[in-house]
């Protein structure tokens, strides 16, 4: 199959598999025929309303069929889709609209009522899908879309928290789909189950574009990191062979499913663990709890390389180094990796920044030449911002984020090491570690934020803090400057579960955590 664009894929599926179910959402099926019809109706409405060519259009939909109508409808009308977190504040939507010069926002009717009213003056056009449907005459001529055209902008938070719109062309996306399909040996017989956000990279590209490309069944669930039972039950019911989630979700599944409740996950061929640091303990615990063997595989990717970069081969055991770090495997076919420091290539085993060369590499950030220049290394390699090393056999291991390591007394510490240590303490739900330099003699110090489900008393709080300080001291040989016990969901995360350390740091330093009552203990 040789497609130039994602639209070609869907059009092909409509013609050859029109009556076949493209996906289910909460068990309700949508066929490829229905999917395409909705897309064209909406695209026609956009054209009727005068959408200029290559205009970015923000879409604000949660998981569900409407997302696809809006996302591909924009592309079919010749625009660039800008899918954002559906519960984004109006300030966030406006800030991104300014950044990408979007004037159109498509959203569900209820959201329109919430957002559009405080935005009367912002010059944005807010359109709900039912309105578009009513307006559509479906007489429009659709513009030709080329493989080099940008399909969508994937907004990510930069290291300092400012939004960056990664430009992904149809060619980038189709390349990465083929790389992942080949690398993970995915076939049309695969059965996908996913609760990942379909408006964000792994959930969108791996979990919906790949199955659409192959016409393989995919069963989608609402996004809810806490609904481990729904996820596991869907895997069992649909006899799913392929699922994917960040490490945190697997940890949560292990914790919230005290005993297996008879969940039979034996249909799984691949449970991909990616998008945040992969822990050996998570793989061991999850597989043991559900009696699985060599099903969980570690993977690595980033939006700037479309999504998938490397993965362990399904069916192989995890590969651990002397520090207990789990390898994220070898690069997918037609993806080249090297480890660099400044302008220099580093040899096998040396830790440096991971550089990637692939036809799936983005051409850069939209409207951001400075960010784009910093992203591109040379010879077609981009700089990931992640630190890692390649071993002698070409397996990649991630060590941390380049801009997010903690420097303590001349030593570099990965926040992940601390977070893993603290997460292992009973009652701690989720942890973030920050390095903060108050400009005093002592220099950069470690601050720990540990989310608890709740706190029964100050005495209980003291006991948990003491445990954290002592476990930390035993492992690292010094003490953290401060340990805060915080409410659930205090630690900001991306839609895929990556901790946003920069955002947490500014929330803390500006006093917002205290002002919002997020800090449970102590009171200073």
């Amino acid at each position, binding site marked *: 199959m040789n497609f130039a664009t994602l639209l070609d894929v869907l059009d092909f599926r409509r013609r050859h598999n029109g009556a076949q179910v493209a996906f289910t959402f909460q068990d309700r099926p949508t066929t490829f025929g229905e999917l395409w019809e909705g897309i064209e109706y909406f695209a026609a409405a956009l054209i009727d309303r005068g959408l200029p060519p290559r205009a970015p259009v923000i879409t604000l939909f949660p998981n569900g069929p409407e997302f696809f109508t809006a996302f591909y409808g924009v592309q079919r009308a010749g625009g660039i889709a800008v899918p954002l977190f559906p519960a984004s504040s109006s300030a966030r939507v406006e800030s991104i609209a300014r950044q990408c010069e979007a004037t159109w926002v498509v959203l569900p009717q209820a959201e329109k009522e919430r957002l559009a009213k405080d935005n009367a003056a912002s010059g944005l056009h807010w359109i709900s899908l039912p309105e578009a449907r009513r307006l559509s005459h479906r007489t429009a001529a659709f513009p030709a879309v080329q493989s080099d055209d940008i399909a969508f902008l994937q907004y990510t938070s930069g290291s300092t928290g400012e939004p960056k719109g990664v430009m992904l062309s149809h060619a980038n996306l189709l390349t990465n789909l083929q790389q992942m399909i080949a690398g993970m040996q995915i076939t049309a017989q695969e059965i996908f189950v996913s609760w990942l956000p379909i408006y964000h990279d792994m959930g969108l590209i791996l979990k919906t574009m790949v199955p659409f490309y192959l016409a393989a069944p995919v069963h989608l669930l609402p996004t809810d990191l806490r609904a481990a039972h729904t996820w596991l039950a869907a895997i069992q019911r649909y006899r799913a062979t392929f699922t994917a989630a960040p490490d945190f979700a697997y940890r949560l599944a292990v914790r919230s499913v005290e005993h297996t409740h008879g969940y039979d996950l034996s249909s799984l061929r691949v449970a991909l663990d990616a998008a945040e640091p992969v822990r050996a303990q998570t793989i061991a615990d999850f597989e043991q709890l559900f009696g699985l063997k060599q099903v969980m595989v570690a993977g690595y990717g980033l939006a700037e390389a479309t999504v998938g970069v490397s993965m362990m081969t399904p069916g192989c055991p995890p590969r651990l180094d002397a520090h207990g770090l789990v390898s994220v495997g070898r690069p997918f076919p037609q993806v080249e990796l090297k480890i660099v420091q400044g302008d220099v290539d580093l040899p096998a085993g040396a830790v440096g920044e991971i550089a990637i060369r692939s036809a799936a590499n983005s051409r850069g950030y939209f409207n951001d030449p400075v960010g784009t220049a910093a992203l591109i290394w040379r010879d077609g390699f981009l700089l990931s911002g992640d630190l890692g090393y390649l071993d002698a056999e070409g397996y990649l291991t991630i060590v941390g984020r380049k801009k997010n390591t903690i420097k303590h007394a001349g030593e570099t510490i990965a926040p992940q090491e601390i977070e893993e240590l603290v997460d292992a303490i009973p009652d701690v739900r989720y942890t973030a570690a920050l390095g903060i330099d*108050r400009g005093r*003699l*002592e220099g950069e*110090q470690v601050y720990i934020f540990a989310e608890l489900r709740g706190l029964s008393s100050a005495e209980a709080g*003291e006991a948990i*803090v003491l445990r954290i*300080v002592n476990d930390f001291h035993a492992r690292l040989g010094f*003490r953290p*400057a401060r340990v805060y016990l915080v409410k659930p969901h205090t630690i900001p995360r991306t839609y895929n579960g990556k901790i946003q350390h920069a955002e947490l740091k500014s929330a803390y330093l500006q006093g917002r955590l205290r002002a919002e009552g997020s800090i449970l203990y102590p009171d*200073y």
Partner: protein
Amino acid sequence: MPEVTLKEITQIVRLQLGAPQVNESDRLMEDLDAESVDIANIVAALEARYNIQVQEAEIASLVTVSDLLALVNHLL
């Protein structure tokens, strides 16, 4: 202004050092195994808790838990 009590100070020292038991006469370094950076962090905690400013020179003269108590009450 009400004086800060020993109870409050020992609690902060316990939390900062991870020490289950802290007494007024304990020496921070010798008895409680604090390093100089831990003392700096205790002082930062006291500054945050009581909204005070401690000079670097004053930190160097802190030896015992009761010194911390005296310092805070002096600055309040």
